[in-house]
C-alpha cells in the first residue's frame, strides 16, 4: 500500500468542535450560590465611600451589559488615552434625560479598557438625597461631587468621572442636543490641579437620543422637588413603556489627556488658569462631539 497522506482535520469536517471556553451552567449557579453566601454573611469589602465592588461586579455590571452591547451597541474610541493605573479625571458631556451615559461609560472602562478600570463617578447631591438611588449610587462607587471627595479619590489613584454640566446637561431639551452647557464653576479643574491628575476629555454620542425630551413639566417638577420633569414622545403618555430608552447607536470617545501636574498644586488658586483650562476641556469635548456626529451615519445605526 502506498503511503497514505494525512490531511489536516478541520472541525467542520466531522461536526465535533473543540469545547469552547464558555462557563457551563453549573459554574454560573455555583457563582450565584457563592455570591449569596457572601451577601448573607456580609463577607465582602466596601470602602469609605460606600463602594461595594462585589455587588457592582456581580449584579450591576451584568445587568448593564446587555444595554451596553446589544441595545446601544456602544463603540469606544481612544481607550489608550486612559492610563492603566493612577489617578485621572475623566470629564464628559452629560445628556439623555436620565444619566444612563454615566453608567455606560462605567461599563466601557470596566469591560473594554485593558486594565479593566473602575470608574468612580461624582454625583449631584440630589442623587444621594433620594432613598434607594443614593444608596445604590454609593455602592456602585459614586460619591458626592465636592472637592474633598474628588481630591481624596484622585490621590488614592482612582479614575474619577465628572459631568460638569450636571442637570443642565441631562435635562436640556432635545432641540439643544450636543451643545455643551456651562461647565459649572470649574471645581473639577481645581481638584485636578491640586492633585496633579491628568484631565481626560470624553465625548459621548448617542445618549442625547435615548429619551428625546420635548417638554418639561416645571410645576410638577417643583412639586416633586426634582430639577426637571421630562416629557418625551412616549413618556408619560405610554406609562412604563415610555421608560424604555430608544436604541440609538452610541460612541464614547476618550481624548488626549490634558496634563496638570506641571502647574503645581498652587495653581488651583489662580482663577484665570482654572477658567482657561475649563474652557480648553469644554472646547475639546465640543469639537470631538461634532467630529463623531459627522462620522455617524444615522441615529440608530
Amino acid at each position, binding site marked *: 500500500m*502506498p503511503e497514505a497522506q494525512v490531511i489536516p482535520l478541520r472541525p467542520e469536517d466531522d461536526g465535533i468542535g473543540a469545547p469552547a471556553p464558555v462557563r457551563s451552567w453549573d459554574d454560573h449557579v455555583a457563582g450565584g450560590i457563592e455570591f*449569596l453566601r457572601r451577601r448573607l454573611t*456580609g*463577607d465582602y469589602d466596601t470602602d469609605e465611600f460606600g463602594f461595594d465592588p462585589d455587588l457592582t461586579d456581580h449584579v450591576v455590571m451584568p445587568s448593564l451589559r446587555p444595554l451596553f452591547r446589544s441595545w446601544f451597541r456602544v463603540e469606544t474610541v481612544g481607550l489608550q488615552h486612559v492610563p492603566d493605573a493612577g489617578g485621572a479625571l475623566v470629564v464628559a458631556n452629560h445628556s439623555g434625560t436620565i444619566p444612563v451615559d454615566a453608567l455606560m461609560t462605567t461599563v466601557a472602562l470596566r469591560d473594554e479598557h485593558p486594565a479593566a478600570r473602575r470608574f468612580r463617578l461624582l454625583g449631584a447631591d440630589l442623587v444621594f438625597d433620594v432613598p434607594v438611588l443614593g444608596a445604590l449610587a454609593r455602592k456602585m462607587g459614586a460619591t458626592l461631587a465636592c472637592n474633598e471627595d474628588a481630591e481624596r479619590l484622585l490621590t488614592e489613584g482612582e479614575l474619577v468621572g465628572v459631568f460638569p454640566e450636571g442637570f443642565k446637561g441631562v435635562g436640556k431639551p432635545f432641540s439643544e442636543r450636543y451643545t455643551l452647557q456651562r461647565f459649572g464653576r470649574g471645581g473639577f479643574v481645581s481638584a485636578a490641579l491640586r492633585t496633579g491628575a491628568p484631565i481626560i476629555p470624553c465625548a459621548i454620542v448617542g445618549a442625547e437620543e435615548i429619551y428625546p425630551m420635548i417638554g418639561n413639566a416645571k410645576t410638577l417638577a417643583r412639586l416633586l422637588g426634582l430639577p426637571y420633569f421630562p416629557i418625551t414622545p412616549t413618556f408619560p403618555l405610554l406609562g412604563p413603556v415610555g421608560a424604555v430608552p430608544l436604541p440609538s447607536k452610541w460612541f464614547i470617545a476618550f481624548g488626549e489627556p490634558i496634563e496638570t501636574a506641571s502647574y503645581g498644586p498652587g495653581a488651583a488658586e489662580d482663577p484665570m488658569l482654572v477658567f482657561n483650562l475649563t474652557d480648553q476641556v469644554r472646547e475639546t469635548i465640543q469639537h470631538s462631539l461634532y467630529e463623531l456626529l459627522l462620522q455617524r451615519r444615522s441615529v440608530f445605526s
Partner: protein
Amino acid sequence: MPPAVVLVTGVSRWLGGALAGELAADSSIERVIGVDTVPPSPEVLRRLGRTEFVRADIRNPLIGKVITGASVDTVVHMNISATPGGSGGRTSMKELNVIGTMQLLAACQAAPSVRRLVLKSTSAVYGASSRDPAVFTESMQARRVPGGGFAKDSLDIEGYVRSFARRRPDVDVAVLRFTNFIGPRIDSLLTTFFRMPLVPTALGYDARVQLLHEDDALAVLTRATTQDFTGTVNVGGDGTLLLSQAIRRVGRVPVPLPTPAMGSIGRLTRGGSLVDYSPEQMRFLNFGRVVDTTVLREEFGYTPRYTTVAALADFARTVQPVVPPALVDGVAGRALSLLDGLARVSESVAERRRPAPPSIPLRAVRDA
C-alpha cells in the same frame, strides 16, 4: 511631663472606669480621682484600683472644691451622655451634658493647678447628611449643623471648651472625636443596636460605619491624658463597613422599614431605653459617617490595633448570632456539592445521549 493628679469624670461607666483603672495602675501618677453622679458597679469598682471615688455632680460647684482641694493638674471630661435613655430623658441629658460641662470648665478656670484638659468628644459633631463629603478631616465642619440631641450637645460642649482654651491659654486642651465604640464590654449605641435579633434599618439607605474597638479607645484616652498632644483629633479604626453588612456579619437580620415607621418605633422604644431612634440618630443610620485618621496616626502617634472589621468581629464573638455564619456557609457548601453532583449526572447523561464520535475519521486518510 506626666500628670501628678488626674480627675476623671464619668467614671462609673465602662470606659471612664477603665481609664481610671489604667491611670491608677501607672505608678508615676500620684492620685487618680474619679467623679460620677452614680456609684460605680461592683465590676467597675474592681477595675478602679487605687482611684479615689467622689460621688459628685459636675453640675454642682462642689466639683470646684474637689479640683482645688486636690490640686488636680489634668482633667479628663467624659461625663457626656449619648442617649437620653441612660440619663432619664432628653432634658436631664442636655442639662448634664451642657450645664455640667460649663460648671466643670468654670471650676477648671478658677483652679490655677489645672494644666491639661482632655475632652472625650464625638465625630457626631460633623453631622450626617447627603451633602457631606464622604470622609471628614478635623478641619471640616458639619454642612448641616446637627439640630438637636447628642450631636448638638457635643457641638456646644466643644464650643465651651474652645472658649475655655482662649481664657486659659496656659492649659493644653486635647479634643478627641471618637467614632462609634464597639467591643465585648463597652455599652454604646451600636452595641445595643447589634444585640437586637432583628435590627430595624431605614429602607433605601445604607450608612457607612466606622468603628473603634474599646481597647483602642482606652489606649487613646490614656495616651491623651499622660502625653502632651494638643488640638483636635479624630479617633477611629481603619476601614469601614456598610450598616447592612455589619448587621449581617454579627449574624443579625436587618429589617428595612420606611423612615416614618422608624420614627414611631423610636418613640415606642425610647421610653424603654432600647434603642434611640432620635432624628439625629436616624440621619446617622441613613448616611453614616467616616473620619480621616491621618492626624491620629501621624501627630497623635497612635495606630488603632483593631480595624473596623476586626473590632466588629471581636464584638460578634460575644453575641449569639440569629443567623450563624457557619450555618450559611454549611448550607452554601451543601448546595455547592449537590450542584457538583447534579453537574456530574447531567454530564454523564449528555455523554450517553451524544452520538459516539466517529472512531477514526477514515475519510481524513486518503490514498495518495
